[in-house]
């Protein structure tokens, strides 16, 4: 059922603005819209919005860094709950800010340690070739007449320096670029350098503050590097412990988003120096709730609820009983109903369940599906659209169990085998689609015709209700006559006379009145004839319902083939091998049937939806509703404990 909406206009003191907006957010009942006379200029809010986005971004970034160390929620654990107060309390933000500080400083510390570690290791690496140097570094120095210096010389080139007035001490001859200490007379230095470069040598000098033997310095550096590595590891552990702060950050993100939403709603208000005007939409059954919330803040206000005007489009809210409301998720996948249309969910739900059961058509699969969905609902307690869909599928599973008795199988086995152990028997109760192919095909198309005629009936009702009885008779009832008549002629040729009359009446109504808005008689008849051609659409739509039959066959054939495979495997050996192959066959069967269940459920879900959307909704449903998005608490990471109002869904 569509809930009637009222247009809310509230005028109150500017001083009460923040408190009123908080109170309204708490009840989640007002869909705030731009005030008619507001300029739509939000520029004064840009800074506020930017600061919210920046804050949320910072929390997210901090959370991203520690997310890997946070306790992972299990696949089946329900979402954590939180007290509503925690969302509005400054302490939430403060605590999260503390956590962000800790995370940022710890991350910086870790970065520093890692950089230091690399630096020490790099330094140690430059000294490594000189480990075998026997002298203290400070002893390798020039005197007044002697130049003493270090260099790397390619090993095979050392011999080229023979005859040069220099003495070469090779420190380590295992390296291809040999570290050497060279000594020469100061006057020969230039020549030596020239020859050294020719031989591919490069000079090397120790850092001036190094003292003692290289090997000691090197060892000291390495142990320092190890110390740093240990410290890094310790700090990394400390960092990983910050994974515990994850919830604080997520809560703060949710809290900021709640406040951000309120700020954005405030941007829609028309504000003067002393007062403000709020405009929005309210469900007509929540008028009191809204007024009470405002009364709780102040008694200086003016409030007015008016019916929507012709040119206004209120948001759409649907209200259904517990069973039907699950199917709203399916309807909404197509489109929200137009505010001035009809809520098709309760009309669609029984067809959906019936077609679902006929398509999946295997009681075994239905049973497994039902149990799995119920377990999931019980453990995970999914909310929102997804929760609704899981409930729909659970019901679909039950419907499948029932339909399986009439047209289907049990895990690919015929019911007769399951109950009596024989191939022949009373099952399936209606048809065996593999044997009575044509009967099953006609049965499915018949169901389709039934649903389409129902749709036309609804359409006629809607037209009468909106005061257009002509359209109801000429555009809807006429089609029911024509289609029912034609089908009757084909189905019971013996008693075709009344059906012929029915079809003729329907056809004439369409031919004469489909173009009733045209003045010209030929134009009118032309339009009528064109409309009559629409009968081809009904043929196409009817045939489309054969997918029910086809999906049923897919499930049956798939199950049968898989059982055949399993049976072949189980009978493949004897003795110990036989036992092993039987066990293997069991495993293979579970996996294959699991796959079949998954793929067929997916197909069934979607094909059933398609029949509703295209063949059923196409005949009467008015789309284009706007979603009702009341100012409220919209959380991503938590559920609110003891939420009392309708927003709970």
């Amino acid at each position, binding site marked *: 059922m569509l809930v009637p909406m009222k247009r809310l206009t509230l005028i109150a003191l500017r001083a009460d603005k923040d408190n009123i907006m908080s109170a309204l957010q708490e009840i989640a009942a007002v869909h705030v819209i731009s005030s008619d006379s507001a300029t739509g200029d939000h520029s004064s809010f840009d800074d506020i919005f930017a600061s919210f986005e920046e804050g949320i971004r910072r929390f997210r970034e901090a959370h991203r860094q520690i997310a890997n160390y946070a306790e992972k929620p299990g696949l089946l654990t329900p979402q954590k709950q939180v007290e509503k107060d925690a969302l509005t309390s400054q302490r939430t933000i403060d605590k999260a800010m503390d956590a962000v500080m800790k995370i940022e400083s710890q991350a910086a510390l870790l970065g520093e340690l890692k950089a230091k570690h690399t630096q020490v290791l790099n330094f140690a690496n430059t000294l490594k070739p000189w480990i075998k140097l026997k002298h203290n570094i400070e002893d390798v120095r020039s005197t007044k007449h002697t130049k003493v210096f270090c260099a790397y010389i390619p090993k095979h080139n050392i011999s080229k320096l023979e005859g040069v007035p220099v003495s070469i001490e090779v420190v380590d001859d295992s390296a291809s670029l040999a570290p050497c200490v060279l000594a020469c007379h100061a006057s020969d230095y230039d020549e030596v350098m020239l020859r050294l470069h020719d031989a591919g040598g490069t000079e090397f000098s120790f850092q001036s503050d190094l003292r003692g033997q290289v090997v000691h310095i090197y060892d000291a550096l390495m142990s320092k590097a190890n110390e740093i590595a240990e410290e890094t590891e310790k700090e990394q552990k400390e960092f990983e412990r910050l994974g515990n702060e994850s919830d604080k950050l997520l809560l703060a993100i949710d809290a900021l988003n709640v406040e951000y939403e309120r700020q954005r709603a405030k941007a829609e208000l028309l504000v003067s120096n002393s007062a403000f005007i709020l405009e929005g939409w309210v469900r007509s059954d929540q008028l009191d709730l809204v007024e009470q919330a405002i009364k709780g803040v102040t008694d200086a206000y003016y409030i007015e609820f008016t019916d929507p005007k012709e040119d206004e489009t209120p948001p759409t809210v649907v209200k259904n009983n517990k069973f039907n409301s699950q199917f709203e998720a399916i309807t909404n996948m197509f489109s929200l109903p137009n505010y001035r249309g009809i809520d098709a969910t309760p009309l669609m739900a029984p067809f959906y369940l019936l077609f679902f059961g006929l398509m999946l058509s295997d009681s075994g699969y239905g049973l497994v599906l039902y149990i799995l969905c119920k377990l999931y609902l019980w453990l995970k307690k999914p909310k929102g659209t997804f929760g609704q869909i899981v409930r729909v599928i659970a019901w679909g599973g039950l419907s499948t169990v029932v339909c399986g008795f009439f047209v289907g199988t049990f895990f690919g086995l015929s019911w007769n085998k399951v109950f009596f152990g024989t191939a022949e028997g009373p099952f399936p109760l209606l048809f065996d689609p593999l044997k009575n192919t044509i009967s099953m095909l006609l049965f499915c198309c018949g169901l389709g015709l039934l649903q389409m005629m129902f749709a036309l009936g609804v359409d006629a009702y809607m037209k009468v209700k909106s005061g257009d009885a002509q359209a109801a008779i000429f555009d809807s009832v006429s089609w029911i006559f024509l289609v029912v008549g034609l089908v009757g002629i084909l189905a019971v040729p013996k008693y075709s006379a009344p059906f012929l009359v029915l079809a003729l009446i329907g056809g004439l109504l369409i031919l004469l009145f489909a173009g009733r808005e045209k003045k010209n008689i030929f134009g009118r008849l032309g339009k009528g004839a064109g409309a009559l051609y629409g009968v081809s659409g009904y043929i196409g739509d009817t045939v489309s319902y054969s997918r029910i039959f086809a999906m049923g066959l897919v499930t049956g054939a798939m199950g049968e083939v898989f059982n055949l495979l399993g049976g072949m495997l189980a009978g493949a050996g004897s003795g110990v091998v036989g036992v092993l192959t039987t066990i293997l066959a069991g495993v293979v069967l579970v996996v294959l049937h699991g796959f079949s269940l998954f*793929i067929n459920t997916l197909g069934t879900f979607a094909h059933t939806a398609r029949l509703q959307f295209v063949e059923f909704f196409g005949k009467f449903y008015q789309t284009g509703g706007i979603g009702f998005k009341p100012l409220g608490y919209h959380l991503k990471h938590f559920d609110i404990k003891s939420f009392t109002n309708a927003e709970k869904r």
Partner: protein
Amino acid sequence: MEWGLILAGLGAFIAAVVAGVGSAVWVGKAGQAVAGVVAEEPEKFGSLLILQLLPGTQGVYGLIISFLILTKIGVLGGATPDFSLGLYYLIASLPIAIGGGLSAVAQGKAAVSSIALVAKRGEGFGNGMLLTLMVETYALFAFLISLIMVISK
């Protein structure tokens, strides 16, 4: 060897292979598209996996027809067919081979586009799945005809 068996065997072959290749290629392409999205948004993996899988059903349909033919022609059961019956099985395999193989391509393209849709707008999953499944109808019809042809003999 009997010509009937050879023709029927050819039917089993093309049902499995043509439909299977069509599915494999486009499940692969859809997989590449999913991988690209998941690199940025790992939380979309679950729903995208379903979209990737959609062009894969044709291969399963082909496999089933192939199996059912094999159970009829003396390979997994039944008796060796004569020439005309063998030819009949070959013809019976054509709807799912051609209809399945080509619809896998078309469905794969729709799936890749729908993956892009979900990448841009996560709540578009329902729409994307329905758009992709529209193509499935024709694979289903092709399968239906092949199935009826095979089981009725």
